[in-house]
C-alpha cells in the first residue's frame, strides 16, 4: 500500500469527489462558459444545439440547457445521441441494448453542436459520437462538454468545457450520479479492484 498515491482509494472504497452542491455549481459555471464561448445573447445567431450521450450525458445536457436558458434568456435546442451502433467494441461484449436518439426539430446542419457526456476517459465514446453525427448532418462546428475529465486518453480528443479535472489511476472508476437516474447528485471515485 505504501506505493499507492497518498489519496488513492482502497479496494471497494468509495470517495465523494463532488457533492450535490458542487455538481450544481459546476454545471452553472459550465453554462456560463458555454454562453461566453458561443457568444449567446439576445442578438446572436442560431444558438448551439446540445446533444447528450445517453444515459447520464442526456441528464447533464438537460441541466446545462436549463442553466443556459436561466442565465442568457435563450433556450438552446437539446437532444440525445446514442452511440451504441457506432462503438468499436461491440464484438467484445454481449449484446448491448440501444438507447434513444432524439435530434431537435431544427436539425444540426450549419449549427454549433455541443456533445455532452458525464465522464471523458479514453475518448472512444466521443469518437463514436463524431461518426454518428456525420450521418445525421453537417454541423458548422462540434464542441465537447464533460462534467469530469479523468485523463487516460486513447484518441487525440479534448473537451471544450470541463467541470472538473480528476487525476485517476486506470484501476479506479469515476461515477457521475444524477438524481433522475441514481437517486442523488454526486461524483464518486471507486476502486475497480484492478480489472478496469
Amino acid at each position, binding site marked *: 500500500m505504501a506505493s499507492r498515491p497518498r489519496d488513492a482509494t482502497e479496494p471497494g472504497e468509495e470517495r465523494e469527489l463532488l457533492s450535490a452542491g458542487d455538481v450544481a455549481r459546476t454545471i452553472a459555471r459550465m453554462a456560463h462558459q458555454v454562453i461566453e464561448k458561443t457568444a449567446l445573447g439576445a442578438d446572436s445567431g442560431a444558438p448551439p444545439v446540445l446533444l447528450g450521450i445517453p444515459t447520464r450525458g442526456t441528464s447533464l445536457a438537460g441541466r446545462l440547457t436549463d442553466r443556459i436558458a436561466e442565465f442568457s434568456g435563450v433556450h438552446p435546442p437539446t437532444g440525445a445521441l446514442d452511440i451504441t*451502433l*457506432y462503438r468499436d467494441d*461491440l464484438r467484445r*461484449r*454481449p*449484446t448491448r*441494448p*440501444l438507447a*434513444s436518439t432524439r435530434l431537435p426539430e431544427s436539425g444540426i446542419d450549419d449549427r454549433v453542436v455541443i456533445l455532452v457526456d458525464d465522464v471523458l476517459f479514453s475518448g472512444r465514446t466521443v469518437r463514436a459520437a463524431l461518426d454518428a453525427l456525420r450521418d445525421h448532418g453537417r454541423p458548422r462546428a462540434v464542441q465537447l462538454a464533460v462534467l469530469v475529465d479523468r485523463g487516460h486518453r486513447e484518441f487525440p480528443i479534448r473537451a471544450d468545457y470541463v467541470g472538473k479535472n480528476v487525476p485517476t489511476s486506470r484501476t479506479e472508476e469515476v461515477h457521475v450520479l444524477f438524481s433522475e437516474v441514481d437517486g442523488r447528485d454526486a461524483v464518486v471515485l471507486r476502486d475497480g479492484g484492478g480489472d478496469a
Partner: protein
Amino acid sequence: MKHLLATDGLDPDLASAVLDTADELKKTLLGREVRKLPTLRGRTVITLFYENSTRTRVSFEIAGKWMSADVVNVSSGGSSVGKGESLRDTALTLSAAGADCVIIRHPASGAAHRLAGWLEGTGTSVVNAGDGMHEHPTQALLDAATLRERLGTLKGRRVAIVGDVLHSRVARSNIHLLAALDVEVVLVAPPTLLPAGVDALPVTVSHELDAELPALDAVMMLRVQAERMHGGFFPSAREYSIAYGLTEARLRLMPEHAVVLHPGPMLRGMEISSAVADAPVSAITEQVRNGVHVRMAVLYHLLAAAGGERD
C-alpha cells in the same frame, strides 16, 4: 442469440429486447440524411431462398445493407442447387465461403433447424425466413412490432388470426410469439383449415368471424395458400370469401381502435377486400416498413456482439 429458428420456445425477454431494438432503430433512422449504420461492417450475410419471395428477401437485404453488412443473395434457380447439390452441401459451402449468417427460406418444414445442426461449430448463424408450414419468426416479430406501435401495449390484447391457419407458418409463429407476450389469440377458420393438434396450442378456436370481431384489438388475415392445397378444403373461393373475407361491413363490427394486419402477398377480394386493405385501419404497409427495422434488430442481436459470449 446464436440462431433465430422459431418463436416457439423463444425467451419472451429476448423477444421484447429485439422489439425494443427495432423501435430505436426505426426512430434513429427516421429523417436522417444517411440511412447507413456501421454496426455490422465486415460481416457477411447470405440469403438462401428456395421459394419465391418479394418482401422478406428485400427487407433482409436492405436490413443487412443499412447496417453495413455485405449481403449476398443466393436463389435456387441461379445456383448449384439447380445441378442437384444437397441443402447440406450448399450450407457448408456458404459457411466455408465466409458467411456469418445464412438466412434461409425453404419449402420443407424443419429445413432451418437442419441447417443450424449442420453448421454447428462453424460460427455461422441461421435465420429461418420461412420453412414449409412450420415457422416464419421474423414475420411474427414484425407483426408484434406493428401491433405494439399501433396499440401502445401488447399485454392482455386480443388478436384473431383468420383463414388458412393449416398451411400458414406465419400463423404458427404468431401464435407462439403472441402467447409469449401475453396476447390472447383466437383462431378463426373453417375446420378443414385448422392444423391437427390445435388443442395443444395456446389459443381458442372459433368458426364464426362475425361473433369474434367486436371483442378484438386486431385481426390478422392470412392468405389462402392455393399452392399448398391439394384437395377440397372449402366448397368455392366465393363461399370462403363470404364466410371469412374481411369486408367493410365486417370492419364496422370491430372496435374503433382495432388494427388490420396481413402478412402479404394479399389476394384482394379473397380474404380481404380492396377497400379494407387500403383503409386507415390497415397497417399493411407499416408491416413492411417495420419488417426492415425488425430484421435489422435480429441481425444486430445475432451478429453485433461478441462471438463467444452471444446471449
